[in-house]
């Protein structure tokens, strides 16, 4: 990155909104949005609770091509209600993935890319949101039998809660340095474990444990890329070109359970100890 020209002309992916991100990835002219904002399929639950709803419920779904391959891309808008996933947004993503699986059974090799900026379930929609996330997870597992389902966590929201499980089920997972990935968000952990254990305002500490670089070093994600539209696009195409034959991470649970079984929870965890644990060279 010492090339000044490259730095001056790079375009941040993190700074783009959900709709712009989808447009930046799909082949030019191929994008067709499904249930766009003018369809006005928004949350029926938020306005009853005095919260202004967004016309697309914070989820953008589009079909198109990626390097000439049929693809569906779904993006969560992190700026709307913290990227929380409710009944409608969840159903949009699950439905898109189910249709992609249907395509594959009909001989059309549709792959999927999920752009995840989400704190997880939308608490105002409670069980309906949780059910929608379960449907998304089931649809990922179904589609990944046929074609890659690539998760991208770019930041700045990160990916937490039930959607972090959805991310872990993806056949490939791609992160930037801005990304964070974890089951519970920092404030939830601080509230449960106490300030001494986990200070949610200590940003270097939070990123050292849940940030993209750390997750990559621990082997919990497959690719660590710069926050750059071209770099992310090229890496997606490279994965689609050569998806590899590796067992999905969620099928490697025996290895992960063995590693976690060796973890000593008494001393305060730090980034180096966690890396060593996942890399399997610590007793």
């Amino acid at each position, binding site marked *: 990155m010492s090339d000044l020209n490259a730095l001056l002309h790079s375009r941040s992916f993190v700074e783009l909104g959900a709709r712009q991100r989808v447009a930046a990835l799909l082949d030019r002219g191929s994008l067709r949005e499904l249930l766009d904002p003018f369809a006005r399929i928004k949350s029926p639950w938020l306005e009853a609770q005095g919260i202004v709803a*967004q016309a697309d419920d914070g989820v953008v779904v589009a079909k198109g091509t990626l390097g000439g391959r049929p693809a569906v891309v779904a993006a969560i808008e992190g700026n709307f209600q913290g990227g929380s996933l409710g009944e409608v947004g969840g159903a949009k993503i699950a439905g898109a993935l189910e249709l992609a699986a249907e395509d594959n059974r009909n001989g059309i090799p549709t792959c999927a890319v999920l752009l995840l900026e989400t704190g997880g379930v939308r608490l105002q929609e409670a069980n309906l949101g949780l059910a929608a996330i379960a449907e998304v997870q089931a649809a990922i597992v179904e589609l990944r039998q046929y074609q890659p389902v690539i998760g991208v966590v770019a930041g700045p929201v990160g990916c937490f809660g039930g959607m972090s499980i959805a991310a872990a089920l993806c056949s490939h997972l791609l992160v930037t340095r801005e990304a964070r990935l974890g089951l519970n968000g920092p404030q939830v952990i601080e509230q449960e474990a106490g300030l001494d254990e986990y200070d949610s305002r200590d940003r270097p500490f939070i990123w050292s444990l849940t940030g993209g670089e750390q997750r990559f070093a621990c082997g919990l994600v497959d690719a660590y890329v710069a926050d750059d539209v071209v770099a992310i696009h090229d890496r997606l195409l490279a994965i689609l070109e050569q998806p590899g034959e590796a067992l999905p991470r969620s099928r490697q649970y025996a290895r992960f359970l063995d590693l976690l079984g060796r973890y000593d929870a008494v001393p305060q965890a730090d980034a180096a100890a966690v890396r060593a644990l996942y890399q399997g060279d610590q007793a």
Partner: protein
Amino acid sequence: METLSFEFPAGQPARQRAQVGCVGSGDLEVLLEPGPAGRLNIQVVTSVNGSAERWRHLFERMFAGANPPALNVDIHDFGATPGVVRLRLEQALEEVSNV
């Protein structure tokens, strides 16, 4: 949360629709669609109560006597300042006029 309606005289219908912005903190979402000739209808859903006068002044400054295109405008506001509202509206109007 409040829902407000406004109407202004307008010219011919716009030729296309546009969506800009996001219902994020201090921002708003604007949806423009071609409306019946001669009328600009605006519906605002805002998280800020008691702000009807401010919206009316802002729209009057932008649209009164300006012969805007005929549109149905939907605004979903999450506490945007008048400056941000005006920028978003101008952005959306520019998109519907770029045929």
